[in-house]
């Protein structure tokens, strides 16, 4: 068994563990949501009939840690998955003889690893288990699609990438994307939570029922949203993450400009990748401003952050694969 096999096998195992973690965390989310709904209903009942009070407190006690076992499984799978993921990425680097982020395959395995690591790091400081299904599911999807679609054998660096900037510019971009990924998931939850808590829009008087997304989040199938914290909590989480991400993205664009000055003789030339990095920067700058603008704070600001994440994903996929530019390092052709 050589290094290539070790890398590929550990990555497959990591993806499997992430899939297991996603299922476990989803189960946990459902348990928490059910417990909260039960507690809520019990509270309503107890308001109606004060004699039922002992039963309520009993119920609260018994569901104090709902889904704890599922959470344990999820956490273990996620941690072991990250370890194996790290082994897979490092062995890929050893195999290729350069930092493992010079092709689409390598970006994807490294980027998804950073996403999981960001989640686990934030999780150490505050409980964000409610994002775990999204993060684990995304990581499993990313690793599997990297292995199935974008896999290429390790080759040496092409001359244009042979620079110390590869070790500065790309990792920071990947870390920023990982942070934006986690916070984007939280922004999606925030919008869904806001919509679930709000009434169906009245202003579309006759066609309000056509607002299917809103109806969907209010439906019974979306009652797992009860396990997600209040929009204000999500807002302060996403702001903190996006603030870090924005600073790192600013650095990414700047270091990219410096590298471009070294490699191509100009620091800014509106190459498609540069255009999209600029658009992403603009979207997150708009998000930061929207938070403090009346009429934009809350739901609209969250949408701007979601659009920012969509732009990052487009920049990584569509711009790499379909738009011709100088950043043609995907190595998929």
């Amino acid at each position, binding site marked *: 068994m050589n290094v290539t096999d070790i890398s590929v096998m550990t990555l497959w195992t990591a993806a499997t563990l992430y899939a297991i973690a996603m299922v476990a965390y989803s189960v946990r989310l459902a348990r928490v949501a059910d417990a909260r709904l039960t507690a809520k209903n019990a509270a309503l009942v107890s308001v109606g009939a004060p004699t039922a009070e002992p039963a309520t407190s009993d119920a609260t006690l018994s569901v104090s840690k709902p889904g704890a076992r599922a959470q344990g499984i999820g956490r273990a799978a996620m941690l072991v998955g990250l370890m194996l993921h790290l082994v897979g990425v490092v062995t890929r680097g050893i195999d290729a003889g350069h930092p493992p982020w010079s092709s689409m395959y390598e970006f994807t395995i490294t980027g998804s690893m950073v996403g999981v690591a960001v989640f686990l790091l934030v999780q150490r400081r*505050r409980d964000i288990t409610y994002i775990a299904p999204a993060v684990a599911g995304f990581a499993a999807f990313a690793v599997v699609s990297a292995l199935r679609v974008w896999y290429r054998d390790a080759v040496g660096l092409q*001359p244009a990438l042979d620079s110390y900037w590869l070790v500065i510019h790309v990792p920071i971009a990947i870390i920023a994307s990982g942070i934006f990924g986690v916070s984007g998931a939280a922004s999606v939850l925030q919008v869904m939570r806001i919509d679930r808590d709000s009434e169906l829009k009245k202003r579309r008087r006759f066609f309000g029922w056509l607002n299917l997304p809103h109806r969907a989040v209010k439906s019974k199938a979306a009652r797992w949203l009860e396990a997600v914290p209040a929009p204000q909590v999500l807002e*302060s989480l996403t702001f*903190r993450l996006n603030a870090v991400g924005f*600073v790192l993205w600013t650095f990414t664009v700047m270091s990219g400009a410096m590298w471009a000055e070294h490699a191509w003789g*100009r620091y800014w030339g*509106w190459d498609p990748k540069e255009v999209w990095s600029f658009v992403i920067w*603009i979207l997150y700058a708009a998000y930061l401003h929207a938070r403090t603008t009346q009429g934009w704070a809350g739901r609209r600001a969250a949408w701007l952050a979601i659009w920012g994440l969509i732009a990052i994903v487009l920049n990584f996929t569509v711009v790499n694969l379909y*738009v011709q530019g100088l950043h043609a390092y995907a190595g998929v052709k």
Partner: protein
Amino acid sequence: MSAEDRLHPDGATPDGATLDGATPDGATPDGATPEQPALERPKRFSADNYAYASAPRLGVRGWLRWMWRQVTSMRLALVLLLLLGLAAIPGSLIPQWPQNAAKTQSFLDNNPGIGPWLDRAGLLDVFGSAWFTSIYVLLFLSLIGCIVPRAIVHGKAAVVPVSSVPSSLARYEDRLEAASPLSTVDAVEALRTWGRGHLLWGWLTGYRVRVDERTARDGTPQVAVALEQGSLREWGNLVFHTALVGVLCALAVGSAYTYRGQAVIVEGQTFTNAAVDYDSFEAGRLFDPAWLKPFTLTLDRFDPVFDVTGRPVSFTAHVTFADPGKPADDATIRVNHPLEIHGGKIYLQGNGYAPLLTVRDADGNVAFSGATPFLPQDGNYTSTGVVKVPDVTSGPQIGLVATLYPTAAQAPDGTVSSVNPQSVNPVILLSAYTGDLGLDAGIPQNVYQLDETKLKPVLGDDGAHLVIDIVQGQTVTLPDGLGTVTWDALPRFVALDLRADPSLPWVLGTALAMLFGVSVSLFSPRRRLWLVLTPGDGNDVEGGDLTLVEAAALAPPHDEAATRALASALAVSTGQAVPSPRVRQEEL
């Protein structure tokens, strides 16, 4: 909402006389009592947009102020920001003139219907178009209109005293309480020391403190301590936005003083740094070509390395660089490692083969001899080039269109292709044209293309366009007594970019200031901590003369460290150690 509502939001009945006085042209309906507001009939059609004739006019100054408010409002800035992002997107999807002129031209040729319209709308040069420019100019106007008043307010804020503690902290949910063995004087002193922060940068990062001795509503004496932090955040904010304007200024100055030239140099040839010696040369409006230092650059050798599969590993150009009157220096230029000279840089941007061909005309005279750069078309350096031979002693002018295969291999169906970028088995396939090359008209021509309008192809015996294959060192004879072509050698060429931009340090400096400013502005907190100390003899704390400390904080919800800061302040005021900050927050 009517104009009256707006003028009198509290619903107080306006005095009819005052209203009339404010609007002399307003007509009061006859039956109006003094208590009743003068109800006017809203005008349906009007030159101005006032629904009520008697509403006070904004006037010129008022309108100007209104416009200024709109231009500098955050809402407009936000919309402009989003517009700027949206406007940039077509620039990445449609070919752009400044980025790739050849591709843009072929896009125009392939889309004769919509292409010219896109071009007219500026979509083929988005970043130089009037509408893109106007968006960012407006955005920066709005930005300046925002920075200037904020800087003034911020400057004044330094001398405005810290606002006092609210009379009661009871309504703050996260209010803390403790009993302190310290006297109020000692507790205040401890808080001052803690709030001052670090010895070196405490003046910037520490709290501003205000201490009031006051009497509570029930008559007990209290000491109220207000700690305020947040000036640093605004500093960062202002630095970031000012630096953003700085970046734009540096870009503008840079584009006026920069120059960029491309030179193609074949191995053994020498390039002199003068505008005429460049293959293409662009300079900013204020650039003076006389500033070009007349150094010379000789390409001694170009050294490409490919791995066994033909993938490029490295490209190195070995050059000799000489200033007039000074000894020459050897240097190398590689991808990612430009050569720095005279405040400018020389970049290795491209490379290829430049076959050395000699064409003799019908009389046997050398009509052309030189290395012609062939443009690589693929990773295996299948290259195409054109040789124009205008100076024939007799007969028509000759044009040659050639394709070079560095490692030629023939497929079973007869097609030739190159299978390796190195010149292992180089072959050139030539086809010839005769007639008028069109060079005598004085119109500049693309050296890599043949203008075929006045040329006719040289045909073979079978009547088809003749294709001659030639290997290195060989001489072939063109039909119809046109002459001969000799392939003498296969040197390589490099395409160099020479560029100088005096604004680079400024761009870097302002960009770093931006990064610094945005970090400070996003990560330094803005919060107020309030502590109310009630001395021991004035409160009913059990056990004697303990000082009662009440504490509350005002901070945005994302500032989770505010709770910790408040706990620290409380601990300090009770004479305890500051608690450790590492506490994991449980799910809410």
